């Protein structure tokens, strides 16, 4: 059993003893193939580690057909954030085959704080690292997408700058106008994005 927790990327910093301790707080659940594990929109406050089998992440199309968007395999984790900040499930998860998972709920995490603070600390650290990594990935993606949008808008921006340059008939002003119109888009987006920092 410990070997599964050992293999979980999110928990790689935990010692063997800590992994064993963590397992004490987790519940083992089994699902038959096709059984619903999480339902989209339903409240969630637990994380799952797949011990055996596989989970299928599905989203419902407008025609109510289930489309699989991701597979979750052995030693993969789902819902690690809702264990700390409960939130409605964002997708429906079904058991792709007969599957065994270890579940850690918010209540168990709270108990762990009292009974095994070192392990609780390690689990929360693991979640922080995973969140930090994902945040960086999402931010990079935003910056890339924005750079693409700005590049596509460059001719238009140049025209605007050209028009204002003709008005003021000074070249320095034109250059500043180009520089100023670009970051305003960035800032409004970055500002909203980092407002919660």
């Amino acid at each position, binding site marked *: 059993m410990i070997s599964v927790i050992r293999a979980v990327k999110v928990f790689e910093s935990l010692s063997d003893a800590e992994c064993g301790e963590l397992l004490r707080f987790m519940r083992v659940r089994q699902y038959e193939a096709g059984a619903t594990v999480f339902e989209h929109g339903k409240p969630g406050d637990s994380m799952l580690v797949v011990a055996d089998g596989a989970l299928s992440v599905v989203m419902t199309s407008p025609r109510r057909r289930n489309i699989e968007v991701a597979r979750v395999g052995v030693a993969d984790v789902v819902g690690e954030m809702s264990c700390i900040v409960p939130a409605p499930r964002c997708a429906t998860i079904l058991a792709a085959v007969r599957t065994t998972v270890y579940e850690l709920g918010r209540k168990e995490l709270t108990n762990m704080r009292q009974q095994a*603070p070192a392990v609780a600390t390690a689990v929360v650290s693991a979640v922080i690292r995973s969140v930090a990594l994902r945040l960086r990935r999402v931010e990079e993606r935003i910056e890339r997408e924005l750079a693409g949008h700005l590049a596509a808008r460059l001719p238009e921006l140049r025209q605007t700058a050209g028009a204002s340059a003709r008005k003021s008939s000074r070249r320095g002003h034109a250059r500043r106008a180009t520089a100023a119109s670009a970051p305003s888009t960035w800032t409004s987006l970055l500002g909203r994005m980092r407002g919660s920092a």
Partner: protein
Amino acid sequence: MKDPALRGLLSGLGKAELEQLLATTRARRFPAGTWLCRDGDPASSCFFIAKGAVEMVKFLDGEEHVLATLRPGTLVGQTGLVENSLRSASVRAKSATVILEIKRKTFQRFVQQGSPMALHFQEQIAIAGIRQLRAAADQLALVLARSVRPSGKQPAAVDRLALAFIQAGTGEWDLPLDRGAIPPAVVKKRQS
């Protein structure tokens, strides 16, 4: 410690932990206009604002943009407590400010000891990070929505499909995207 500002973040801590925190952090004063840290600097501590106010500032193409103003009782630069991180914005004292600086090494010692204070702080860091990640995912949805071309008929269905497309496409399917992140105007325009 009677300062109401200190209550927010530190409310979950007992007397012993508060004393431990005060004994291991350093109070630093920053006159208005001085910098607590700069964007891109290696980060090895976080700041708890005890008095005054600070601004989070980002420079883009030499232009200064204030992203947020933070008041007493707030933790800023929490990612500095996580290994190998860089400051993601500059922080400047808006008025005369007093902060408690918590060094990563100190914090890690508490973590290793399984101190309730460390756990409490960590949870605050995790919660702030999760909120930031959810906000960033919404922002990404907004940016990507411009390139989504749904083909459905009903607006609600188009909206749902667009969200599913974005969630799956970014690999962030377990993040709730705010439906408001995609302005109806974008969806309507795509329909016609």
